[in-house]
């Protein structure tokens, strides 16, 4: 239905692989359409890092300590990172010395840790001579639009994402905003989610008409979301909360974020195009969630990568400008958010930085 609608409009689309194994692969079984990809994949077909990178790393000798929480990075007299202070699973304070510290706590956790590692030498937080640590926080504001068709859909009987479109990804000045978005198309949802969402939207009545209405909605939903490329704005930021602390007494992150004008225009554009797509698919009862309330899951941009130490926190291969044995390999490196789900890019950056470290081993700290 969705593919035919896109073809009617002459717009780009492509099937989604959603990083699941479609054939048995390296000890992982192929996808059998369990449908619950986001929380977990019992089959092991979803390529989450717990069954891809981590087993390989552990076979190579990496020790993984779970349920630990790092409080701060310590420094030595030479201005190099010396190790970390952390709390173990029992809540006991521990110290781990290190030749190199690599951070991968993403766009909120990593700046929080750097800001919590302030010292006499780094009074504004570690690796923060630019003053940018924690600034330029970007999400992916999602504009979600869905409707209902007469035909039955795949519903929740397969990976939730089925198609993508890059039709509106690149900048087109006539649209009134820069950059763009990816459309992510969804198969539908199961009965419980459909009932709760439709009741909240006023589509599902209480009382006598409930059952007939539910049968018209359940298993008939099609929808899509515009994954909008957020831009860096310094007022969107992570700082340390002056009061709130976690269970170990470590200052908690405080998030200040407002959707920018460019992103807001992009979302409106996405909603209008999504309505056209759903109309082409002959869907009715159109519903809009913009932004989706639960969508603050891509945490990006707070320790941006760049060549200029005044305008970035790490250099072009992931090393802190200020601390030469401190590396960052997560979403905080992004300089814009990209209009796509970011995990593959984060993994590519981590692999790139690891390669750079290996190639530069002889003069890594120069």
């Amino acid at each position, binding site marked *: 239905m969705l593919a035919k609608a896109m073809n009617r409009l002459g717009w780009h689309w492509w099937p989604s692989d959603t990083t699941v194994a479609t054939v048995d692969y390296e000890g992982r079984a192929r996808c059998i359409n369990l449908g619950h990809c986001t929380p977990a994949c019992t089959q092991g077909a979803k390529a989450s890092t717990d069954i891809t990178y981590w087993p390989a790393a552990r076979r190579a000798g990496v020790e993984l300590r779970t349920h630990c929480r790092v409080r701060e990075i310590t420094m030595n007299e030479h201005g190099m990172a010396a190790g970390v202070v952390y709390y173990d699973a029992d809540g006991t304070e521990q110290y781990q010395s290190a030749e190199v510290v690599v951070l991968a706590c993403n766009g909120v956790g990593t700046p929080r840790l750097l800001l919590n590692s302030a010292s006499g030498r780094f009074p504004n937080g570690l690796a923060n001579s630019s003053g940018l640590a924690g600034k330029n926080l970007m999400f992916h504001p999602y504009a979600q639009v869905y409707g209902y068709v007469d035909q039955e859909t795949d519903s929740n009987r*397969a990976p939730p994402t089925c198609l993508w479109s890059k039709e509106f990804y690149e900048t087109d000045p006539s649209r009134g905003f820069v950059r763009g978005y990816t459309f992510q198309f969804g198969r539908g949802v199961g*009965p419980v989610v459909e009932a709760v969402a439709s009741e909240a939207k006023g589509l599902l009545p209480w009382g006598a008409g409930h059952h*007939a209405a539910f049968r018209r909605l359940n298993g008939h939903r099609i929808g899509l979301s515009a994954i909008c490329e957020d831009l860096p704005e310094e007022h969107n930021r992570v700082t340390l909360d002056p009061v709130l602390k976690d269970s170990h007494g470590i200052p908690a992150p405080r998030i200040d974020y407002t959707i920018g004008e460019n992103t807001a225009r992009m979302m409106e554009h996405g909603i209008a195009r999504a309505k056209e797509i759903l109309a082409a698919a002959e869907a009715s009862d159109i519903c809009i969630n913009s932004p989706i309330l639960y969508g603050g899951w891509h945490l990006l941009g707070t320790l941006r990568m760049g060549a200029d130490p005044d305008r970035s926190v790490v250099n072009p291969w992931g090393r802190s400008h200020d601390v030469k044995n401190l590396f960052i390999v997560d979403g905080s490196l992004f300089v814009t958010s990209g209009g796509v789900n970011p995990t593959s890019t984060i993994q590519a950056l981590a692999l790139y930085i690891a390669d750079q470290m290996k190639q530069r081993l002889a003069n890594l700290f120069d």
Partner: protein
Amino acid sequence: MSADDTSLTAAQRDDMRAIAAEIIPASLEFDVPGADDSAIQADIVATLGRDAGLVREALDQLARLAGRPLASLDPARREAVAMELRATGGAAVAALTRVVLQCYYRDDRVVRALGLEPRPPYPKGHVLEDGDWSLLDPVRARPPMWRGA
């Protein structure tokens, strides 16, 4: 009051049962129980968990609107009170409605009546029809739309 299976008083449980029937009544046409069914009510009460506080708040709101046990009102008045509760809205009523809906639509009898199998997805999974790959032909025929490196 704790959030275990005794987190509702007897009067609150009675009102919960009555309002659940107003939200989702039984239907002979669709061969389904109402949300006041005893097994569904037991599921609701046993799994209130973190919603217990809001649900109690909604039931207090309901008790104020009804003035007496909801089940003791005549059908027209029960429906009017239910509609007023829904229109009043708020987080508490939303929580109550959600717990009724989620417990109802995971009941095996209800799931079967929807034409679905009441089973977890693993290990059987699902089989979908193959899509029509020729739909991609016009997309493949497009000129490149990405920026060059």
